[in-house]
C-alpha cells in the first residue's frame, strides 16, 4: 500500500481520537484503523474472501431495507409520494417523521423483498429520474422548515432504461446532488446495502456519510468492472478485491466518516439489533451537527467533498 494512504489513515486516526464522541462505532473505528495500520506494517492485505463477504451480505435478499429501518427508528412516519410532474417512483421512499425528539426528512432507495412481483414493483431499488426528483422535493421541504435530512443509500445503480434516459437520468442525479449541496440543514447519509455509483451518490452528498459494516460503496458493480476490465463478468470476485468496495477501505480513504457495526452475522440476522446500532450512530451524528449554523453546514459539506482525491503534482 502507498505511503500516502497510510498518512491519510494516521491523520484520520488522530482526528478521531480528538473527537471524543459518545457515538457508537467511534471507538470501534479507532480500533479498526489501528488494526489496519498494523496490517500495513506487516504488509498484509485483507483477503478476497473478506471483501466478497461484504458484497454478499450487502446484496443479501433478507437484508433490511430503508422501510425496515424507518419502521424501527422513525416515529409519526408519513410517506410523501410523487415528483409533482410525472409519477411516483416506488424505488425511492421519502417522507417526514420524528427521530430523537425532532422532525426529520427521510429519503432512501427501496428494494422489494420476497416474490418477483414485490421486487419488480420496487424495480430492485433502481430509481428513475422521477424518484430523484421526488427526493429533491422533500429535500426542499426539509430545507425550508429546518428539518435535518437523513438518507439511506441502497441501490445497485440508477435505472438503465430508455425512458429513464429520455427523462434525463444523468441530469437528475446531478441536480439531486446540487440540491443536497445547497441544504442549510444537517444532512447525514447512511450506506445500508449497495452504494452503487451515480445512483448512490445522488443521495450521499451529506455532512457525514456513515456506512454499515457489511455494506458496499463503489463506482461500479464488481460484475460491471470485471466485464469491462477483465472482459469477463465471472471475474467479479477478483474485481472486487482490486477496487475494494468494503466499508473499511472506504473509511481508509476518508470517503465515509464512520462504520456502523452490524450484528455479528450481518444485519439480516437481526433487524432490531441492526436498527438499534444504526439509530445510535445516527443520533450521535445529528447531535454533533446540531451545533453548526446553516451556513457552516453548507460550507462543511462542500469542503468535505472538495478534499476527495489523490494525485501528484
Amino acid at each position, binding site marked *: *500500500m*502507498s505511503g*500516502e*494512504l497510510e498518512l491519510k489513515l494516521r491523520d484520520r486516526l488522530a482526528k478521531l481520537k480528538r473527537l471524543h464522541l459518545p457515538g457508537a462505532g467511534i471507538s470501534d473505528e479507532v480500533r479498526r484503523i489501528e488494526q489496519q495500520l498494523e496490517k500495513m506494517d506487516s504488509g498484509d492485505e485483507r483477503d478476497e474472501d473478506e471483501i466478497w463477504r461484504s458484497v454478499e451480505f450487502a446484496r443479501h435478499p433478507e437484508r433490511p431495507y430503508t422501510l425496515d429501518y424507518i419502521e424501527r427508528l422513525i416515529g409519526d412516519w408519513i410517506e410523501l409520494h410523487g415528483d409533482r410532474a410525472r409519477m411516483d417512483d416506488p424505488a425511492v421512499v421519502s417522507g417526514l417523521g420524528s427521530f430523537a425528539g425532532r422532525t426529520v426528512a427521510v429519503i432512501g432507495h427501496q428494494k422489494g423483498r420476497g416474490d418477483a412481483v414485490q421486487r419488480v414493483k420496487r424495480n430492485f431499488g433502481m430509481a428513475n429520474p422521477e424518484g430523484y426528483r421526488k427526493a429533491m422535493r422533500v429535500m426542499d421541504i426539509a430545507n425550508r422548515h429546518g428539518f435535518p435530512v437523513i438518507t439511506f443509500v441502497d441501490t445497485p445503480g*440508477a435505472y*438503465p*432504461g*430508455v425512458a*429513464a*434516459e*429520455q*427523462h*434525463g*437520468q*444523468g*441530469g437528475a*442525479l*446531478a*441536480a439531486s*446532488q*446540487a440540491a443536497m*449541496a*445547497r441544504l442549510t440543514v444537517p444532512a447525514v447519509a447512511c450506506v445500508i446495502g449497495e452504494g452503487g*455509483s*451515480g445512483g448512490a*451518490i*445522488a443521495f*450521499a*452528498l451529506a455532512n457525514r456519510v456513515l456506512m454499515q459494516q457489511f455494506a458496499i*460503496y*463503489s*463506482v*461500479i458493480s464488481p460484475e460491471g*468492472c470485471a*466485464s*469491462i*476490465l*477483465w*472482459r469477463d463478468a465471472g471475474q467479479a470476485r477478483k*474485481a472486487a478485491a*482490486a*477496487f*475494494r*468496495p468494503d466499508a473499511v*477501505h*472506504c473509511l481508509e*480513504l476518508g*470517503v465515509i466518516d464512520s462504520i456502523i457495526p452490524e450484528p455479528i452475522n450481518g444485519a439480516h440476522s437481526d433487524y432490531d439489533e441492526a436498527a438499534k446500532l444504526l439509530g445510535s450512530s445516527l443520533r450521535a451524528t445529528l447531535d454533533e451537527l446540531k451545533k453548526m449554523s446553516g451556513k457552516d453546514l453548507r460550507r462543511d*459539506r*462542500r469542503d468535505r*467533498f*472538495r478534499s*476527495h*482525491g*489523490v*494525485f*501528484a*503534482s
Partner: protein
Amino acid sequence: MAGRIDVSIEHKNSPPEPGGSKKHPNTCPKCNSHYRDDELAANLRVCAQCDYHFPVGALERIEQLLDDGSFIEEAADLRSADPLGFFDLRSYKERIAEAELKTGLGDAMLMGQGKIEGLDFQLTVMDFSFMAGSMGSVVGEKFARACERAIERKVPLISVNASGGARMQEGILSLMQVPKTVCAVENMRDAGIPFISVLTHPTTAGLLASFATLGDITIAEPGTLMCFTGPRVVQQTVREDLPDDFGLAESNFRFGHLDAIVRRRELKPTLAKLLRLFGHVG
C-alpha cells in the same frame, strides 16, 4: 493531434458494427468520404459531405475555439497517483504512462484561461483519447480549481466535455469526483459566475451525473452521445430495440435537456455571443 481518437465506449467484445472492419480515422463513418488530415483539420474536423462531426482532441479544440495564443494553461503539473495500486489486465500506472505518450497530455483535461473575441473566461477542455476522457482525481481537481479560478478572476467558466465517465481504476475516489465537481459548481453559482457547458461526443455516465448537466447554459454538438447508461447496457436491460437516436443530443434536445444543438463551425460565434450577453460578472 491527428484525429486518431477511438470513441467507442462500448465493450471491446461487442459485435462488430454492420459494415465490417474498423475504418480509417479520417474516413467519415456516416458517408464514407475520406479526407487528408490537413483538409479535415481545415474544416474543423467536420465532414464536408454529410456534416458528421469527427472527434476533436483538447489541444485542437483550443486552437479551433480560442483567440490565437490566448490560452494560458493552469494546474498543468497535476498527475494521477495510483491510490489503489490498481491492476486489471495491466497496471493503472502503465495505462496512464501509455495515455501520456499517446496524447502528449498530463491527463484527460486541460484547464486554464482563454479569450474568445477578446472576452476573458476560464476554460476546461477534455480529451477523449486520454483513457476515454475518464474522470479521476486529476480531472476532478482541475475542474474544481477552474471553478475557484473563475470566482477569483470574476470571469465565466466554459467547459468543453468529452468523457466516458468515472475512471474505474481509481475506485470509489473516482466516484467522489462527481460530488466534488458538483460542489465546485454550486460555489460558483453562489458567486454569480456564469457556467457554460458544452457537450461533445461522447459525454456520458459520471460526467452527465455531475458538472456537465449543471451549466447555466448547456449546449451540445450534433450527434453527441449523452446518456447516463450506454446503449449496450440499456439494451441488455430492456431487451428490446432502442430508438434510433437513443441518448443522442437530438433526442435530448427533443426531451428538453439541452438549450441548443450547435454545429461546430457555429460554436465559437455562439460562445462569443453568450460571453457578451453574460457580460462582466462579479
